[in-house]
């Protein structure tokens, strides 16, 4: 095995181009488990810890540019206002030790359907910036996941950062597991309200081969809120609307039975999470009067 230590981004891209089968290692919280257990014996590791750019974030007018290796603990401390959904999800990852090392780039690299970054990225709207010696491209996050633990990266590409829409309204994340810490999601759900455009975003975790959005549920809720004038009035979302929204969220799922839960349980729990997070974001919207016209 080789251990490659690029000192900067250019060197990292050159290393990946020269060794396409090399495995990048950032926080190591996925990679090292596989190596320790003999599940993976790559020819080479590319250590990304020395690359300063990957550990930086920048808040722009509409988006946050989040370096691939900014650890979860810093997202929680430094970006709770700009990225509230992701910060909530980050707080449920593993333990303090895991959150000090792991980050969104590694979560995207692993592309587990249970990864906790995915629902909030899908709900907020995000593009993954990937690069190689051939150039840079941006992939909408919903197109980044291509299968169970598969993603859209070419063998010579690395993830540089994620461009995530800054929150323009309330966001929530909720996850079902057996305890509060150190839990792989049985199912998870992220929800974002975008009052400026009167749209909503969703993200579903652990209920399909890849993380997915529930597009039909989003369109239905947008239309229902619009027709009843609720964005302006800040009135209560009728239970029938919340129920239908939850049903459509569940319809977007395609869960399996596994050791963590049955498909039936996942569907049931997902409906509960959808209704509950809708309650939370709508309460916050009404309370804070996020861009509401006649308050």
């Amino acid at each position, binding site marked *: *095995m080789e251990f490659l*230590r690029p000192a900067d981004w250019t060197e990292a891209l050159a290393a990946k181009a020269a060794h396409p089968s090399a495995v990048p290692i950032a926080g190591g919280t996925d990679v*090292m488990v596989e190596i320790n*257990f003999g599940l993976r014996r790559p020819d080479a590791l590319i250590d990304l810890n020395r690359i300063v750019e990957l550990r930086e974030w920048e808040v722009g007018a509409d988006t946050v540019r989040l370096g691939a290796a900014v650890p979860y603990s810093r997202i929680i401390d430094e970006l709770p206002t700009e990225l509230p959904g992701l910060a909530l999800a980050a707080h449920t990852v*593993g*333990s*303090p030790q*895991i959150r000090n*090392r792991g980050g969104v780039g590694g979560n995207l690299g692993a592309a587990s359907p249970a990864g906790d970054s995915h629902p909030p990225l899908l709900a907020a709207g995000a593009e993954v910036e990937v690069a190689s010696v051939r150039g840079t491209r941006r992939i909408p996050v919903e197109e980044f996941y291509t299968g169970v633990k598969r993603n859209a990266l070419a063998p010579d590409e690395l993830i540089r950062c994620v461009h995530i829409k800054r929150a323009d309204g309330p966001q929530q994340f909720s996850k079902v597991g057996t305890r509060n810490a150190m839990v792989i999601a049985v199912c998870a759900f992220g929800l974002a309200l975008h009052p400026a455009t009167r749209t909503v975003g969703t993200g579903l975790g652990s209920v399909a081969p890849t993380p997915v959005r529930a597009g039909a549920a989003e369109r239905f809720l947008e239309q229902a809120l619009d027709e009843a004038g609720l964005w302006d009035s800040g009135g209560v979302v009728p239970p029938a609307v919340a129920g239908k929204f939850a049903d459509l969220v569940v319809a977007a799922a395609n869960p399996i039975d596994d050791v963590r839960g049955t498909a039936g349980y996942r569907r049931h729990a997902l409906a509960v999470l959808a209704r509950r997070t809708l309650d939370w974001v709508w309460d916050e919207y009404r309370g804070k009067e996020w861009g509401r016209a006649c308050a």
Partner: protein
Amino acid sequence: MRVSFTVNGRRHEADDVWEGESLLFVLRERLGLPGSKNACEQGECGSCTVRLDGEVVCACLVAAGQAQGREVRTVEGLADGAGPPGGLAPIQQAFVDAGAVQCGFCTPGLLVTADALLERQPSPSDADIREALSGNLCRCTGYEKILDAVRLAAARSAAGAAPTAPGPEAPPAPRSEPEPGE
């Protein structure tokens, strides 16, 4: 490959390190520092917890090469500079006094984690303590004595700090120490 880094303030070098080897393996098997324990090798138990450039991390999940040139603090270094040689750090003494150690396998990781917590938050709430220790498993104590130990260390450091803060505003020493032992 050769890896060199600082452990508890001293420069160390390890040769013939396999590229996939963990920092934990290097500490225990190559540098003769077996304080950090190996129980799960998958980040679940926290018994291998060390500080890497100040951050608490699972040493089993850090590739040895990633520690190159960095500063590692292990349980062996906790008592450095804390009183006479061979003495215990305040957090270690608190664990002894509160009866927070049974088989002791989880103890090094908990000490490193708790020490980092108190450095950051000298008077943590119970919720803060639970959150901070949520990545450290103990199969013996049921955790209550461990929580007691962290509270005890926090109370002692508040009490200890009081006399050095002169003037009428100095707060009275809290008398909230739980009884040692039981």
